[in-house]
């Protein structure tokens, strides 16, 4: 695949690993959080951690939109889907996410709710056109990458004068969540994670650009390197972070310059700001309510807002108390520290959302990392 395979070259990766090793100071820790689930996935999949010196540690952050969706929002969607007039359109990754008491969209579908998996918001529009007598609700979820497609869909629904179409909006923003990790009050309960720098999200940054991260570099004194998702991209980004730490710098640097600019995608940003506005707060699974971190439809588009249209009530559900997702999302604990990991909680039967999405820390570790644990145990 062009623009992918070239960035997976093993020889270059091994060379980069040597350079990283040569430049790290063995006497100090380097703790870098990759915020984005895509990076977590790449690190596990290509075994990047094995190539890094022991004092360079990657901390898997909360950056998977499926993983941070609270159970209450899943329950709200299930209630909606159980109404006979409604067809609920969802991205496939959402089907297994646990709501309260083991409920999920998959189970609701098995019980007869009309829930359809879509690949793109365009599919949802087509379903609405094909079923004029039904109400089509799109379960919108995701960070800054999936928000513009939702905005385009609403604009399209308006253009096509679809009156049977609305959106259950769960879009969230990355910078407020990053800030929450660094300064939230309940970090006292979970334990503070020490972070020396961030690997900044690749695709989120194609939309919002690198500029929003300048705040972190300045306010928190943390280096941020925006990185692509291929293994060489990540290795280069880690080297760039090591160099910033060594030189006592904290700047925003852009490793992924082939796709990301400082300002991002202006057209996409415009679409989003035309249609959405900030919620005062939005709940994140594992992080709790995060101020100004979620989006809702502007009043002018209320007719497309499923929460208004169907009078949906906010449902708040406590997470399974044994699930350590909250600590894992903040990088305070690792998947194996959760006693449910691999026993009752597997990708087939996820208890928490970190196990649901392939980009979640628990699922990534389940798929690619647990054999390494086994080998390490045998070696020691």
């Amino acid at each position, binding site marked *: 695949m*062009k623009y992918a395979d070239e960035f997976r070259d093993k020889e270059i990766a091994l060379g980069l690993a040597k350079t990283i090793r040569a430049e790290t100071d063995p006497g100090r820790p380097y703790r870098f959080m990759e915020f984005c*689930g895509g990076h977590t996935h790449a690190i596990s999949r290509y075994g990047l951690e094995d190539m890094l010196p022991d004092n360079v540690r990657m901390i898997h952050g909360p950056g998977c939109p499926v993983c941070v969706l609270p159970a209450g929002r899943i329950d709200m969607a299930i209630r909606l889907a159980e109404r006979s007039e409604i067809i609920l359109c969802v991205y496939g990754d959402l089907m297994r996410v646990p709501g309260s008491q083991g409920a999920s969209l998959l189970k609701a579908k098995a019980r007869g709710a009309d829930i359809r998996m879509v690949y793109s918001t365009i599919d949802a529009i087509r379903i609405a056109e094909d079923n004029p007598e039904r109400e089509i609700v799109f379960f919108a979820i995701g960070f800054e990458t999936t928000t513009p497609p939702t905005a385009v869909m609403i604009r399209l629904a308006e253009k096509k004068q679809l009156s049977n179409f609305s959106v259950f909006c769960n879009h969230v923003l990355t910078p407020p969540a990053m800030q929450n990790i660094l300064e939230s009050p309940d970090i006292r309960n979970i334990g503070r994670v020490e972070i020396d720098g961030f690997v900044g999200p690749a695709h989120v940054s194609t939309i919002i650009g690198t500029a929003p991260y300048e705040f972190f570099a300045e306010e928190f004194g943390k280096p941020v390197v925006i990185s692509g998702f291929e293994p060489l991209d990540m290795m280069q980004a880690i080297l760039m972070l090591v160099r910033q730490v060594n030189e006592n710098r904290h700047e925003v640097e852009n490793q992924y310059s082939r796709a990301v600019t400082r300002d991002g995608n202006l057209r996409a940003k415009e679409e989003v700001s035309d249609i959405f506005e900030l919620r005062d707060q939005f709940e994140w699974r594992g992080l709790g309510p995060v101020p100004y971190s979620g989006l809702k439809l502007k009043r002018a588009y209320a007719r497309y807002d499923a929460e208004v249209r169907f009078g949906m009530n906010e449902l708040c559900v406590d997470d399974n108390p044994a699930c350590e997702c909250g600590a894992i999302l903040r990088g305070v604990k690792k998947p194996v520290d959760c006693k449910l990991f691999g026993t009752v909680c597997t990708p087939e039967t996820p208890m928490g959302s970190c196990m649901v999405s392939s980009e979640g820390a628990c699922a990534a570790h389940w798929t690619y990392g647990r054999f390494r644990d086994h080998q390490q145990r045998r070696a020691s």
Partner: protein
Amino acid sequence: MCLAIPAEVTKLLPDEMAIVSIDGVSKEISVALIENLAVGDYVIIHVGYALTRIDPEEARRTLELLRELSLEGQGVAP
């Protein structure tokens, strides 16, 4: 959910849609988020939308830099 892949634009369609090729497999996607796209451009696609264009010159520069950086740790002057 965040996984996205590079693809080549092979045909522009009406209504801001396009056909892209991913390793020879064709897919119809929306290009509503990108201006002035041309056949032969590479884009990053995610949930059926092109999010951004890939800049070939920047990609070439990054690869060159990666090669240099990978030699530095081996005591070899690039």
